């Protein structure tokens, strides 16, 4: 994104933010639900983008962490705890489980790691489904309350959409700060060349575990918002396909790009809705669209933009070189 001038970037960002606040004001209930879902999934995908896009660790378990967060929030808020406390517990819980899940990543990489996390995802689903004393089993947990924020009730769709959007904003700022901190640099070093990272004195063990734990914690945050959003949860939404969807969001948006998860979640959540008018064909068209996009640009949507900007920069640079060269020649 570095090809745009800074004021232009800030203006663009402001327009998007104001648009996200103002435009949904006259959306109906369903439109607001979809948009809130986009915000929640963006948070989860941002977490996975940290683990996968920045630190280079493949995880097929992000959906399980959304589930852990959702169940933590559902169980606590239906027992009278406030949502912020539930979010903190969700963060702590998924951070801890994510840390433990990071240990296999110290031993195995790439597709092996993908399959360990895939197995974990299935195990988590079985626990959600079978431990009915805690999770309500297949009947799930219903009547999950929505929070009061500064004394305002957020039961209506619009206020709760602002809760989701606000949370997305907080998480985005935190991630923005994180990837610019020495930790973020260490994550990228881990992705690009683990051996060299280690020889530069980066504790690769700790940062691998951290990448998993922080990414998972964001999955937990997303889950803790998902539960009050739908107000009813059962195990089905948190099966393996959610993990696969989240992975798809990250790759389609552009892994390792800051804005990738926002775009990826937009495509995964909104595109099927836009295609609804095609009735039974909408998921098929969605699948075809994803495949075509990946064939065209394996680095995702932002990969296209990145390539375009890089091309423009090289062109500009070579034009400058040509000018300089001709000046030299005329001087001689």
């Amino acid at each position, binding site marked *: 994104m570095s090809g745009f001038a800074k004021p232009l970037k800030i203006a663009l960002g402001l327009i998007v933010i104001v648009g996200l606040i103002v435009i949904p004001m006259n959306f109906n209930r369903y439109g607001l639900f979809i948009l809130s879902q986009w915000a929640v999934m963006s948070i989860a995908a941002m977490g996975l983008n940290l683990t996968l896009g920045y630190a280079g660790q*493949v995880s097929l378990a992000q959906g399980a962490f959304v589930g852990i967060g959702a169940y933590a929030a559902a169980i606590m808020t239906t027992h009278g705890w406030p949502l912020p406390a539930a979010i903190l517990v969700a963060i702590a819980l998924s951070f801890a489980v994510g840390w433990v899940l990071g240990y296999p990543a110290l031993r195995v990489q790439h597709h*092996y790691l993908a399959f360990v996390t895939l197995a974990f995802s299935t195990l988590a689903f079985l626990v959600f489904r079978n431990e009915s004393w805690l999770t309500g089993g297949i009947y799930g947990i219903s009547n999950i309350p929505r929070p009061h924020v500064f004394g305002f009730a957020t039961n209506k769709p619009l206020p709760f959409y602002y809760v989701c959007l606000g949370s997305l904003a907080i998480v985005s700022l935190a991630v923005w700060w994180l990837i610019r901190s020495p930790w973020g640099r260490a994550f990228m070093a881990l992705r690009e060349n683990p051996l060299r990272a280690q020889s530069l004195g980066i504790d690769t063990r700790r940062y691998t575990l951290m990448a998993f734990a922080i990414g998972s914690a964001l999955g937990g945050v997303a889950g803790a918002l998902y539960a009050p959003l739908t107000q009813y949860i059962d195990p089905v939404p948190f099966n393996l396909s959610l993990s696969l969807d989240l992975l798809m969001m990250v790759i389609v948006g552009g892994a390792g790009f800051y804005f990738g998860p926002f775009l990826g979640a937009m495509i995964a959540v909104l595109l099927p809705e836009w295609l609804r008018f095609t009735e039974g064909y909408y998921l098929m068209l969605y699948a075809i669209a994803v495949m075509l996009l990946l064939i065209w640009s394996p680095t995702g949507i932002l990969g296209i933009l990145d390539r375009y900007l890089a091309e423009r920069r090289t062109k500009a640079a070579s034009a400058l070189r040509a000018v300089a060269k001709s000046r030299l020649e005329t001087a001689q």
Partner: protein
Amino acid sequence: MSNLFDLLVAGLATGAIYALVAVGFTLLWQTSQTINFAQGEFVMLPAFLMLAAMHAGAPFWLAIILGILLSMILLGLGFKMLLVDPMMRHGVLPLAIATMALAIGIKEAVKQFFSAEASPFPSIVPTGDVSILGHAVSLQSIGVLVVAILAVVGLTTLLNRTSLGHQMQAAAQNPTVARIIGVPVERMILLTFLINAFLVALASLLITPIYLAKFSSGEVLGQAAFIAAIVGGFNQVRGAIAGGLLIGVLDNLAAAYVSTQYRAAVPMIFLIAVILFRPQGLLGRAEERTV
């Protein structure tokens, strides 16, 4: 102990089908670094192609031949040319994601164009039991085992005893050197895709009479094949066979002795243990690290 015997036979029969699917899976990995997340859907689809042929009036034997040919064209040639070839040089992950999208696409297409309901599927083996060592064993299990064993023996003979098989192995192990000594690597890769398509069509023919033809049946199968491939050894055909049989038996025993609720957990825990303590698989060789 008659119960244990029955469980073992049933487990070996499902395991043999898993093995077929897992072998195809490892072949694709070895020759083109394709992790095919749609492998389960690849098994689901041929049964529907055969059913469609029968609806159009073809007799069962003709439907089988048509189904196998069509799946070799669609899932072998089409899959390679349209999806794998354009994406292969961009690394493992984007292609894996694209196959996930393909899995959704196949599932939805079957649901939309055929049926969302489960359809019955005729068996190539007559129903009934025979008595072996005083146990009643269903003909279906025996038929499945025989066909699967024949397929596996045929494939290993092809790979290990023929020049074509040696060329395929060379293309998989070291494409550059293989190309230098004159192996048509591209054609060999295409051949593995065709073999995979044949194997999944065969697996489809064997498993669909047992579990019915349903658009969503690929999910469980695909996962079982992944696990079998990893447990046995990702870079070994015989590893995938052993892994398939092992997972089939383990799954059946877990259902009987652990709990029906957590039966699916047993292969998963086994998988995690294998990856952590023997990542190259039970029969596999260790892969060299690239870094």
